[in-house]
């Protein structure tokens, strides 16, 4: 008999004594407990549609914004679309816009539902061919879009530990005359929009930035960096912020350094968080997993292209149907997952993407028909910019355990277990679990510190 045999044979000590040895110990004030590290995610977005006019407007000079919504209240008996309708509409547009915005080798993060909300407000002032193009790009007619956004916003779950909030505002330049009451009323009904009018000076820029800062819980400090251009007559702003804690705890031992390899083969030093997940995703070119946030109202969906599939080719394959199929066929099992910590800002001007998708007239001062916004004689108004600014941060903070959907396998079968290591470029979505609708969709292509 050797010492290893003896050491191993300690397994013969009874449960009773093992338990007793634990119970007889003193409380543990002096013992270094395993520190629990948690992962939380915070993401936010602000989309601003800046509407300009060809002619410079002059008008009255007020200092502070006046609230045009005074006296305008959302009408009763206004209902949003049901989950199955808005889920398909939003997911479809999300994937189309995502594909348009993708640039090989770069990180990406967009919130298509925010873009839809901003454009949706705008459609309520659009007419003719301008409206037709916007409806075609957004995938539904104006009335359905209004109902989709209302349905979506009404169903956002809120709790202390997982909060997704969306806010909309419209800012008119002082002097824009004849603002259409119907435009204000519809946006109040379906978008809960706050509508202001004020002089577009330095204070206006600060006030708009403060509104964005407030509505994104400080995650986006400024949407308007430069002075407001003279020809700008209106801002339509959508802000969305998401702040949630994971359902499942990341412990300190699960967080450690590792290598993330970009598509060009560059190795970067990152911090990985290891976990065992319960929902596995797979199709012919994807492996992935679903990771819930506390309360299971929201989840993080990781999609890793299979080995040797280029991200650009993978992005090409994405569609509303593919994502729907992946989610529908998620299976219970054990997934050894590795998720890098990451945090980045992302800014994109969406004019080009939206024009490519078919919405060109709204950006053309000679063709745009946004006459439903205002009936004054200031000149033709058009969209001069759709600015999209996002932020995401994945870091450590609290959560707890939960459940997964039931399934059984044959007696004696080995457990399905998979490894999904996000140590190379991957796609991710933050989804609303009620409808499986993505509200953020992004790509991590390049993160971490260079190894040199």
């Amino acid at each position: 008999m050797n010492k290893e045999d003896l050491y191993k044979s300690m397994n013969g000590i009874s449960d009773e004594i093992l338990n007793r040895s634990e119970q007889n110990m003193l409380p543990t004030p002096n013992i270094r407990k395993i520190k629990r590290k948690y992962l939380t995610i915070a993401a936010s977005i602000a989309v601003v549609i800046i509407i300009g006019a060809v002619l410079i407007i002059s008008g009255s000079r007020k200092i502070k914004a006046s609230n045009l919504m005074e006296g305008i209240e959302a009408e009763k008996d206004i209902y949003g679309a049901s989950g199955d309708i808005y889920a398909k509409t939003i997911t479809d547009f999300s994937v189309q816009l995502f594909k348009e915005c993708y640039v090989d080798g770069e990180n990406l993060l967009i919130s298509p539902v925010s873009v839809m909300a901003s454009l949706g407000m705008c459609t309520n002032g659009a007419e003719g061919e301008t409206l037709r193009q916007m409806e075609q790009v957004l995938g539904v007619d104006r009335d359905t879009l209004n109902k989709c956004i209302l349905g979506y916003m009404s169903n956002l779950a809120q709790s202390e530990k997982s909060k997704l909030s969306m806010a909309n505002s419209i800012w008119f330049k002082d002097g824009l005359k004849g603002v259409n009451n119907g435009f204000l009323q519809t946006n109040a009904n379906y978008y809960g929009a706050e509508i202001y009018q004020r002089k577009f000076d330095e204070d206006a820029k600060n006030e708009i930035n403060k509104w964005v800062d407030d509505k994104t819980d400080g995650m986006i400090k400024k949407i308007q960096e430069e002075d407001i251009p003279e020809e700008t007559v209106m801002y339509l702003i959508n802000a969305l912020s998401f702040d949630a804690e994971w359902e499942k705890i990341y412990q300190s031992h699960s967080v450690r350094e590792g290598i993330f390899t970009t598509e060009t083969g560059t190795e970067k030093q990152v911090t990985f968080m290891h976990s065992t997940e319960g929902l596995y995703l797979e199709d012919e070119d994807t492996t992935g997993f679903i990771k819930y946030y506390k309360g299971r109202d929201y989840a993080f969906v990781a999609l890793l292209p299979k080995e040797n599939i280029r991200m650009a080719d993978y992005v090409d394959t994405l569609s509303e149907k593919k994502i729907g199929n992946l989610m529908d066929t998620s299976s219970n099992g054990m997934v050894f997952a590795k998720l890098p910590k990451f945090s980045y800002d992302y800014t994109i001007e969406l004019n080009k993407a939206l024009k490519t998708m078919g919405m060109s007239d709204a950006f053309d001062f000679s063709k745009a028909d946004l006459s439903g916004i205002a009936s004054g004689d200031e000149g033709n108004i058009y969209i001069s910019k759709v600015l999209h600014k996002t932020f995401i941060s994945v870091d450590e903070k609290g959560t707890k355990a939960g459940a997964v959907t039931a399934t059984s396998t044959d007696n004696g079968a080995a457990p399905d277990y998979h490894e999904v290591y996000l140590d190379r470029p991957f796609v991710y979505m933050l989804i609303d679990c009620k409808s499986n609708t993505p509200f953020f969709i992004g790509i991590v292509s390049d993160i971490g510190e260079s190894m040199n």
Partner: protein
Amino acid sequence: MDDKEIIDMYWERDQKAIYYTTQKYENYCFAIAKNILTNREDSEECVNDTWLTAWNEMPPKRPNVLKLFLARITRNSAINRLKAMTAKKRSGKEAAVALEELSECVGDGKDISNELEAKELEKTIGVYVSQLPVREGDIFTRRYFFTDSIKTIATRYGITPHNVSVILQRVRASLKEYLKKEGYIDE
């Protein structure tokens, strides 16, 4: 979810069982593995092995105490890894010291060359520890089952590290005599 429900799920071959087990006992099993292996990465891999082994062992097993059932699996898996690590000269520090201490109790004698003999030795140790006074039995268990350090044991039982060492030395000497009597080592 209580342990009985989790065990029932293993018996029903419901893979959620593994998920719930990881939620409840990952920290606990990790601590056991880390005491033996020291290295975080090895310890985590060892704990991952625990989940697969638990799935393969239930059924037919239906443990009375799930936590301790997992502790034994983790400990076995860690010891097996320790052997490989020792071969690669990167053995776990605390386990190496504990093993060295146990070497005082062994010597020439019966070879433990098969599963049956290993089970017999486990039984013998079980009986021996059950006959120890509570304090000695607890300290011996913490040191050689859970591989707690002398310092940790001293803190957790409110005695000095010197006291712990003396108690362990006394128990090891007594164990050696017991093993001689049982025919595991030569007189």
